């Protein structure tokens, strides 16, 4: 009855992401994987990326992690206020501490800069 392990699918679940980098999960990345990845990563079915592509028409990258102009403060405002069809995230979902870690991690392009 046991089938082959179901493919993790392109969701990039926390376990997969952790295994890939091999490092302890940076708090910021864990929050990103849990909350942001479903709309802001690449590929089909990412409403956030699609929306930013329409908005900026490529003048800035549509994928948030590729942006170089995001400040932690801007990220904090968008997460707490939402925009258009993106609702705000409550503190029971993303605590202030997690939001701090997320903002700095994203503002640094996902730890690349």
């Amino acid at each position, binding site marked *: *009855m*046991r*089938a*082959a*392990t*179901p*493919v*993790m*699918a*392109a*969701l990039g*679940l*926390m*376990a997969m992401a952790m295994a890939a980098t091999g490092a302890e999960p940076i708090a910021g990345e864990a929050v990103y994987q*849990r909350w942001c990845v*479903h*709309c802001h990563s690449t*590929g*089909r*079915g*990412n*409403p*956030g990326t*699609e*929306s930013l592509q*329409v*908005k900026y028409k490529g003048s*800035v990258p549509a994928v948030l992690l590729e942006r*170089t*102009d*995001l*400040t932690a*403060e*801007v990220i904090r*405002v*968008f997460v*707490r*206020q*939402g*925009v*258009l*069809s*993106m*609702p*705000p*995230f*409550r*503190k*029971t*979902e993303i605590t202030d501490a997690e939001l701090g870690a997320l903002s700095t991690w994203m*503002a640094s392009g996902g730890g690349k800069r």
Partner: protein
Amino acid sequence: MTDRRKFLQTAAGMAAVPAVGAAGLALPATAAGAQVAAPATSISVVAPSRLPPGVSRPDFNRALSAWRSAIGADGVFTSDADVALYRDAYSPYWGEPEERVASAAVAPATLEQVQAVVRVANQYKVPLYAISTGRNLAYGGSAPVYSGSVVLDLKRMNRVLEVNERNAYALVEPGVSYFDLYEHITKHNLDVWIDPPDPGWGSVIGNALDGGGGWTASPFRDHFGAHCGMEVVLASGEVVRTGMGALPDSKSWQHNRWGYGPWVDGLFRQGNMGVVTKMGFHLMPRPEVMQSAVVRVPRNEDAIALLDTLNLLENQHVVNGSTSLGGVGGAAGGNAGAWSLTLPIYGPEKVVRAQMEYCRDKFAKIAGSTFTEGELFRTPLSADALTRARKTSFGIPDLSTFGLLGRTHADPVPAGGHMDFSPILPRTGEALLEFAKFYRDNLPSVSDGGKLRFLGPVYMTNWDRTLVALIMFPVGKDKAFNARMRHAFEQWVQLCADRGWGEYRTPAVFQDAVAKVYSYNNHSLTRMRETIKDALDPNGILSPGRYGVWPRHLRKS
């Protein structure tokens, strides 16, 4: 395979939304100095009354401090910034005095804390509004029905208590989202599927209690119908377990749904008789394959034979997937390729192929119809197959649905939010054609001569034996636009009621109007529900007004 997304886009194309200015708010410049377009909101525009109606300041302070000692200060939110996070992002009253807002929020993490919070609220008669993950967007989101209530946020109760592969069931807490449950099942390599609705971040319990549905196979798509056993905190703070859960250390709580004696679970569906803190769900063992087919019929009136055949196939459980009916012809009255129907079937390969063939024979009886078999997907899906499949149809939660109504190429400046008008029609072709004509006849007047654009109607056949005509109303942050949308929504409710069509579910702000439509014998069902509400919640503290059930002291006699 025309899926709902593509279909909705064609429907969306019909209804371009007028440009809406975004009420700007200056934002700190980004590092590169580019002016980031501001989210169309400002948190201080609406200062919530910050004091629940009918509660004195001293009593509210006593309640707040009691809650802080019960669940910890970091679980009690009172600052403007924190409480504003509980606004309904898609509220049709956004920024207006009538917007339903929270006065505070409390977030317990355990059953005992929920009991403590409820007892304190009952003592000081503070109205609570329970939310699970607060993601019930288009139906009220995280804001209370009774403005000024304290939101009881259950998001922190997010433990997956058990997933049993042998007997295919799960027991979860309200804060568990479809993403959380899917992650648990994937991590433990359990060969069962969950049935996700469109957005995957919603609560498995919350969606079921609001009457929501998903996209895999029947009977799992009827989320409340597929539940098995509940644990509920009543307004007195007492905890109750239903079904076999009423038997101490029962071994079959998630096996047998009914238990013994009067079944009370239904009271908590679209209800406010208690706070659900645990709920069991029957899950589907992973089906080996899924294959879908599309049937097209040329003439408008072929909808009758099309639906009769679909009913026959579904009522015999030959077709178990989430069928979806498409048709431009129907709405426009013309005959150009009138209707199409998708027929997904889940199961073992040989069985699905035999069922597909049986469907082909049955639909062949409709003159001029075509039957096109789609790809047969074997599970678990390969990464490649995933790129062609719609995740939710394979038990994988995602958020792709927000691509429909957010900013897209087809709709560069959307209103942002939306609300759903979803009347139930008889599951017949005649009813479908009657509704299509009814919609065409009334659209000019309800839409102010076409100035207001609605999306749809989308005829949804994915509830067993039920047909819903879904019309989506864009909602934004522009007060005048929202007011006209609200008025249109109320008109549709009344026009449909006169035809014997009532909604299966509705956004918080319209729950009173819709409840009044279910008025048989001078609203005897509503009065029966009120009698039960007054008995179970004498002080009327649990989600007052939800689905039109108000406590005694708030009922205008």
